[in-house]
């Protein structure tokens, strides 16, 4: 049976954190999209979605950055990001940003309509199923705020993880509570962020899972960084890495191969 997106061009929005910190998430995304039959394109003119500026109140810089993103992704049927946060920025906030600029608003709305978070795209649109992926581990999934509330990603990652052979999914207490990342929040209010991430890792550790996963690298770097600082051994991986069969590679903050 042919796949619904056979040979359809899909543009990958890599996201700045993946680009800089964990390219393997980007390659996992490419692999998953290609397994779904898509033809993956990575536009070279992309940088960041503009969220750091947007959340710091710098509206003009955000608009300039957003215009660059809109231009870079103009001609693609689908735009996919391995992050609910960056996808949410484009989908929900770009149209808000250009509310008073009718011409740009149309372009922002057009891009918003074509933009998807990776896991929900794979599950809801691409009819993706993990291909002979096996991981004999206990895994707990953290709902990142943007994935959950802006992109309505909740069941999709759980469904896909459920199809990985031997993987046991364990739900944590308060899994919908924020991990304390919040972009620049975790730097500007590090003490409050610390309190929040400690609460989060206490709930994660209580599951006795081997691996914690999520769809947003920001949250994962925050959780991994705190687990590492406190000397806990729980492994941290992006959900795309698990689905792409990279679950046995070193986790975030774990060093290199």
């Amino acid at each position, binding site marked *: 049976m042919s796949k619904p997106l056979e040979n359809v061009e899909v543009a990958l929005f*890599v996201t*700045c954190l*993946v*680009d*800089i*910190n*964990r*390219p*393997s998430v*980007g*390659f996992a995304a490419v692999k998953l999209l290609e397994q779904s039959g898509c033809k993956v394109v*990575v536009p*070279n*003119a992309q*940088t*960041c979605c*503009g969220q*750091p*500026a947007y*959340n*710091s*109140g*710098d*509206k003009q*810089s955000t608009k300039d*950055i957003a215009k*660059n993103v809109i231009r870079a992704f103009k001609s693609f049927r689908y735009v996919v990001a391995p992050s609910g946060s960056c996808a949410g920025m484009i989908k929900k906030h770009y149209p*808000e940003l250009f509310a008073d600029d009718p011409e740009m608003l149309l372009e922002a709305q057009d891009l918003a309509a074509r933009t998807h978070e990776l896991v929900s795209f794979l599950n809801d649109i691409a009819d993706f199923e993990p291909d002979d992926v096996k991981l004999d581990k206990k895994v707990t999934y953290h709902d990142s*705020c943007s994935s959950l*509330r*802006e992109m309505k990603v909740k069941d999709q990652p759980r469904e896909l993880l459920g199809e990985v052979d031997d993987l046991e999914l364990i739900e944590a207490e308060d899994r919908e*509570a*924020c991990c*304390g990342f*919040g*972009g620049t*929040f*975790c*730097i*500007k*209010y*590090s*003490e*409050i*962020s*610390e*309190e*929040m*991430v400690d*609460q989060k890792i206490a709930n994660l550790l209580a599951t006795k899972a081997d691996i914690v996963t999520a769809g947003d690298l920001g949250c994962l*770097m925050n959780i*991994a*960084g*705190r687990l*590492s*600082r406190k000397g806990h051994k729980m492994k941290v991986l992006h959900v795309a890495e698990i689905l792409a069969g990279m679950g046995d590679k070193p986790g*975030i*903050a774990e*060093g*290199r191969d």
Partner: protein
Amino acid sequence: MQVTSRKFKENAHEAMQDENLRAALGRVKEGFTAKRAEAAADLPEFEDLRDQARDIKDHVLENLDYYLEYFEKKVIEAGGVVHWCSNAKEAKETILKICRDVDAKTVTKGKSMITEEIGLNKFLESEGIEPIETDLGEYIIQLADEPPSHIIGPAVHKTKEQVTELFHEHHQQYGYTEREEDAEKLVGEARAVLRHKYVVADVGITGANFLVAETGSTAIVTNEGNGDLTQSLPKTHIAVASIEKVIPTLEDVSTVMRVLARSATGQEMSVYTTFSTGPKRSDDIDGPENFHVVLLDGGRSEMIGTELQELLRCIRCGACMNHCPVYHAVGGHSYGWVYPGPIGAALNPQMVGIEEARHLPNASSFCGRCEEVCPVRIPIPKILRHWREKAFEQQISPKPERWGIELWGFFAKRPWAYRLMTKVAVRVLGLMGGKNGKIKSLPMNNGWTAVRDLPAPQGATFMEQWKKQEGR
């Protein structure tokens, strides 16, 4: 009250060291959130009701002048008086004059955030009139001489042991010489002490959850019945309310009430819902002889027609703070003014100035849970962002922060420069990470590494690696 929002970080630091507070906040988090979730799940039409409640409040805000004047007309028809006050000072003086006219010595009070907002208790005390809070939580914090830390649970930051000590200190004069440790008996003790106060009070002051335009009634919801005694026993009842509390009809009140208690405490309804319409009539057995409504604008009419208008839909249920991870961490007093939590972070910059309250809209991870649970769907994160934009425009945000963002913006706007910068950055960070692949401390940016390790980049950037692979 004295505004300490400027010291939010210091306030929060102290709060997080306070073991009693942490214990008390743990209960807010578990109790209120679970109960609200159950109550919402039990009512299939809950989401529709939220839409209806939002629409009712929006309709009122679009026609506020009409409904306020209609309300006044109905209050007068029922034999009451409406006092229009544009600010806290006018409201306090109006209330004082009413008290003086009946030669009041003591005043009982039902729970009212507006009287906290205008600082009524301290003002009355300075004028020689003794205010007595009758809501148990308000009574506790009055004894402790503290402001409320939550809009529906003013003493939610106190543990039972702290209440035992407070009562022991203040109730010995009434003959309670033993330290009482049982919660139910503590409530009984407060009840017995307060019972006498209701009877001798000259004036009863309450807030109002709703001002019903259709009937000229004020309505309060309580769980203790203290509001009823406050407003029906003294000869004079003053209801103090801000202008956005007006609502067209009793039918609308019932719609909004269906989301109010469920969002607040998870109850289907509060235990008492009391409507007051004018003073005692000739055939009434009890009730006040004089009925006054003090209507406060307090900066609210300036919010109409601006990005802040949606904040005026707030029905003060407290759901946003009950679900806020920042509130759970720092408690209500850290916010430094009357309204804590997400709604306070959105509202206080308007009330006390963005320069004073700059931290509040910034101290949010934008997790969005407040908006998710708000019964009238106030887009709180959007309003917090509005304040961040104002602070950035007015250059109130700290310089290093603005420079950092501008520098990042410079690169993010120029893909070629960005590629170059990231290429260098990953190599530097990679070297710093060494074999372990993590960075323990960063010279420029210790906000991250103060509490967490920074995972070092895996190697070359994705874009570099992708470029090499292209044409696979």
